[in-house]
């Protein structure tokens, strides 16, 4: 096995910690916390059974990496294509958590109206694309949005961003999408959360290069590696990458190293992850790390942190109790049409 990486991992030093940086750090930390508390609630509802049908897929441990990208984006201006483990990034981008809850509970009031569920949600017209399950296929879609804007002369300094896991990088779609984005020199951030596993499969069965970031050179794009458990480092890396993309530097590949701290879904106990991996620094909990960083720098004190936890919990609980009273879909009221051209929809032929 090759374990030596050519990649340098970017870290954050005290000189990076400007006031502006501190404010963004604290904001991102709040997004991470909200994401964690929301997902814990989803997990416990799943385990209680009944209310959530289908799977629950959590981003536990990936909040820093995910939100550090989301927080750089401007809703309404940039295009964001989040994936499975991007609850925190979606919050940072500006998705209200009620969209998550409504989609998981299948409420008709939600963006997906019970038609699609869980992580498969978005509001494309607000720049939040709704992922399909097929991994790798979103990258080209984000690229297409940027391409059209450039054609229309409306691109200006807007960018696109999308994420993927180590496993998803093995798809042809990912390769094609990234290559095309590079050829077209589109302003797109491709964030790869290398959480060491794709479901049960260790990443040694996904790629043979030393570090995924080594691939960037092959695509002719900028590549940066980062410790994804370190919020400060993630912010620094994504800020710089976003600035390069906005300035016309083309696609930016960011590879974060971490460990998935949940099962693939909540049905999965992840017993295939060996203790050794769980004890590795890559298995640090990014939320605890960020919290400690905040305390160490005196940006918040313990009481403030506690209070924030309380407030976030109240917010999440209120959202769930509101949504649980909302209607689920009624098949007799449902508009069973897959085309926007209503006059072209065929009737049911069996009758």
């Amino acid at each position, binding site marked *: 096995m090759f374990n030596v990486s050519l990649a340098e991992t970017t870290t954050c030093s005290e000189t990076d910690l400007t006031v502006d940086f501190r404010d963004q750090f604290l904001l991102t930390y709040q997004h991470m916390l909200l994401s964690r508390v929301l997902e814990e609630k989803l997990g416990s509802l799943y385990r209680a059974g009944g209310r959530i049908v289908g799977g629950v897929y959590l981003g536990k441990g990936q909040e820093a990496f995910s939100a550090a990208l989301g927080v750089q984006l401007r809703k309404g201006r940039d295009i964001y294509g989040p994936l499975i483990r991007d609850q925190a990034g979606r919050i940072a981008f500006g998705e209200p958590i009620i969209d998550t809850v409504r989609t998981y509970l299948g409420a008709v009031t939600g963006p997906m109206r019970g038609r699609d569920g869980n992580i498969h949600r978005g509001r494309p017209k607000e720049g939040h694309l709704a992922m399909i*399950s097929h991994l790798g296929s979103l990258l080209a879609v984000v690229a297409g949005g940027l391409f059209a804007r450039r054609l229309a002369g409306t691109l200006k300094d807007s960018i696109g961003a999308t994420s993927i896991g180590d496993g998803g990088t*093995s798809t042809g779609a990912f390769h094609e999408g990234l290559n095309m984005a590079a050829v077209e020199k589109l302003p797109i951030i491709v964030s790869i959360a290398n959480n060491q596993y794709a479901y049960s499969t260790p990443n040694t069965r996904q790629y043979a290069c030393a570090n995924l970031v080594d691939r960037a050179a092959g695509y002719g794009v900028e590549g940066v590696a980062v410790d994804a458990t370190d919020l400060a480092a993630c912010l620094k890396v994504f800020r710089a990458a976003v600035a390069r993309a906005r300035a016309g530097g083309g696609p930016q590949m960011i590879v974060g190293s971490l460990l998935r701290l949940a099962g693939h879904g909540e049905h999965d106990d992840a017993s295939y992850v060996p203790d050794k991996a769980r004890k590795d620094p890559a298995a640090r909990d990014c939320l605890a790390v960020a919290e400690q960083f905040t305390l160490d720098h005196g940006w918040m004190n313990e009481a403030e942190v506690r209070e924030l936890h309380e407030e976030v919990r109240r917010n999440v609980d209120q959202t769930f109790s509101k949504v649980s009273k909302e209607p689920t879909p009624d098949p007799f009221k*449902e508009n069973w049409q897959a085309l926007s051209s209503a006059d072209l929809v065929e009737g*049911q032929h069996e009758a």
Partner: protein
Amino acid sequence: MSITYLEAIREAQYEALRHDPAVFLYGQDIATFGGAFKATKNLSKEFPGRVFDSPISEDAMIGMAVGAAVEGARPIIEMQFADFSSVGFNQIINQAATLYWRTNVPCPITIRMPSGGTAGSGPFHSQSMEAIYAHYPGLVIVTPATVEDAYWMLLDSVTLNDPVIYCEHKFLYYHLKADQIGERGLPIGKARIARPGRHATIVTYSAMVHEALRAAEELQLDGYQIEVVDLRSVKPMDTDTILASVARTGRLLALGEAFPWGGVTAEIIARVSSEGFHLLDAPPMRLNSKDTPIPYHPNLWKSHRPTTATIAAALRRLLRY
């Protein structure tokens, strides 16, 4: 002792590996983990070096199987969900399906596709792909509906010298049990009379066989005897058995879980209409899912696919004609 449909699939792969050293298994999470549904549980332990975790690369997975088959291997490829086979579509329909016809070299690969809907699975983990693949010359498409067929048809698929799309229904994985696997049933290409009857014929396959049987029970209360034909393989399609059944009953309902445009049910109707028009006492009917992607919420999902109730209602209309 009883065995589920899913366990039968595992047992068949065990037997295939044991019986023929040319067999190997390639798929996502199928080695130590035993697969997303546990269809390959323990096989990597029992057959070291012959069960592999693949990268998430469906196109390459199928292409690799084709190359291996040329060299004499008999790979079984697991798609984690049938839905993801769309990513390997090119290799399936252009590489695997044309190999024998173009080069006279057969392509003995088996592609296992966990198919069909379960509540809460949504548009990308619920699809039935049999009609898409059946459209292309050069592929065999099997759709087992029983524990026995799950077992024997998988073994038959592996020994067959052609590419087989093996559609295993996820809804049957745990629900369907038998006391034992049972004797070898009919060969691939032969349909089965799952229930004899006189008043109407339902031709169907896969999980819908069980919905059809329940609907037939319901109509028996009204004094109707409904014959249920389980196609077992949708390509080749056993037209003789279908026509013989329609000759007995005079009425046909073609039933499938897949989308309504074209597909297996349309093919059934086309064959009966053109070859057995004189046998029909009523216009042939078909019942499929609705013409939208497969919805996530169970309320919608239950209305999207045919159910015992909608099948029974369709039968009543058919019988009234």
